[in-house]
């Protein structure tokens, strides 16, 4: 069945989801749409339903892990419950938190790791070569191609995992706390990659994150979840600057916290910025000297 008016790469409407063997709804009445080239950030405390939302948005719940899905979860206009898991994987790719467990474990080089998905669906060799090269280039990790996937840093492994998912050419990418196990450099690399995939290649991206500073940099819009329900939605700035975010147990980005601290101390933000700029300039001069 094609869902009328829901041809967006990802469209959830009234989605409720219950894990197998449980009676509670892990998601309850979630509505969202992610259009091509847009990035939707998802924030919320632990157990808010962020990872469940990621599984539903990728089609893995219920296709691979079972459970009960109500409402409409559509990938490119097709209901996920009508797709096979391998078909859903070509419409919505998912990246998990832990880079080491999402690599195939069978590839000797990064090149082969990225080719794993396209080979599974039986693409021709020429198409595979083209997709592997394009995915590595999209994430700017061509230099990693000959390396052993098991011997990469966390950030590099996460980029390889993202390239591997991207090689299946899904219109939608779901990233479930992709930087939670990464250092600041790894976080920066993944953040840049996310922006590039949406901005230059038109991927629709849903990203759940605790690191609100990263979301503030990359996302266009955001929602906040609590108890499986959407409790706030808007532009990323509106959601991340909402004072209610702290009550949810989510830390606002450092810039928001600094602005609030300055306001609480009745410091003129303009004067503070000029002072910080002057100090930064002094640092640069000292470094040059």
């Amino acid at each position: 069945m094609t869902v009328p008016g829901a041809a967006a790469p990802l469209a959830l409407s009234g989605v409720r989801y219950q894990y197998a063997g449980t009676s509670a709804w892990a998601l309850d009445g979630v509505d969202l749409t992610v259009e091509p080239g847009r990035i939707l950030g998802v924030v919320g405390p632990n157990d808010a339903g962020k990872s469940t939302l990621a599984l539903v948005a990728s089609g893995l719940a219920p296709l691979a892990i079972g459970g009960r899905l109500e409402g409409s979860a559509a990938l490119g206009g097709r209901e996920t419950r009508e797709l096979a898991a391998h078909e859903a994987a070509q419409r919505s790719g998912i990246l998990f938190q832990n880079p080491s467990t999402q690599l195939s474990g069978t590839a000797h080089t990064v090149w082969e790791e990225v080719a794993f998905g396209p080979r599974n669906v039986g693409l021709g060799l020429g198409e595979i070569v083209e997709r592997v090269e394009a995915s590595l280039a999209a994430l700017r990790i061509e230099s990693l191609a000959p390396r052993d996937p098991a011997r990469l840093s966390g950030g590099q492994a996460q980029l390889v995992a993202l390239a591997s998912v991207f090689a299946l050419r899904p219109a939608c990418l779901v990233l479930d706390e992709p930087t939670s196990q990464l250092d600041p450099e790894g976080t920066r690399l993944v953040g840049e990659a996310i922006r590039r995939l949406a901005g230059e290649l038109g991927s629709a991206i849903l990203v759940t994150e605790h690191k609100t500073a990263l979301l503030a940099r990359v996302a266009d819009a955001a929602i906040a979840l609590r108890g499986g329900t959407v409790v706030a939605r808007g532009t990323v700035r509106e959601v991340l600057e909402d004072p209610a975010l702290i009550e949810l147990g989510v830390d606002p980005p450092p810039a928001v916290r600094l602005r609030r601290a300055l306001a609480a101390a009745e410091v003129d933000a303009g004067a503070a910025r000029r002072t910080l700029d002057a100090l930064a300039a002094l640092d640069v001069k000292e470094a040059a000297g």
Partner: protein
Amino acid sequence: MEDALNEAASRVPDYVLRPVDGTYRRLNPTTKLVIAFSAALVAFGVRGWTGPLVVLAIVVATAAVTRIGRAMRPFVLATIPLIASILLVNTFLYPGAEDVLLRVGPFAATGTGLTEALQASLRVVAFALSVAVFSLTTPTDDLLVDLERRGVGRRGVFVIGSAIRTIPRMVERAGEIVEAQRARGLDTEGSPLRRIRGILPLAGPMILGAVTDVEERTVALEARAFSAPAQRTVIRPIPDSPAQRAVRWSAGLGAAGLVALGIAGILRFP
């Protein structure tokens, strides 16, 4: 059509095509798998010292020729807990043995028990090393493609591949857990008793971690279209020949025959 295929193949980097050196390494993955299984069958099925010692000799020679000696270490280390328990149980608790070598409290170590324990330990080491030689000289991906071509389900093949790759990973994980627990004050060095006590807090996280890993890996594989019904695309040509088919049949039937003749008492091995 063939030109297009050749053109595509020419764009696959050399480090992926990996031309391999050496006769053993060049063998078809299924041939190596059958040899490994046959070796394991002989090691466990042929009575006395002959089975494990012959297999050990072959495996060590193959490891030397293929230059994988150092890489086999994790596989040997993985057998230590099992061998320790085999030695203790057989040496001290072998039923019916009366040739006492020494007494430790209420337990008596017997010569018969020690002999059985050493033979069983050799079998375990021979088995572990034959698996090591196979896994270290065979790209899992090639095995996956070759077995799938022979009609074995992709999931079944992956279970074999994952099991083989899990051993070094488990050893690595054990090292990480020991380091973490040592950093929090657990004494994992010193007397054998202390070391055995140190194994207990190690086993829980290792087993739970491995189970969690498998769960996560399974879901992640689904996200990579692993269950797609299509035939997996072959990147590297996988060699095979009538001679290799003959080797596979000879190894399998030979090993089964030796074991059967030994059990029937027609062949006696020292």
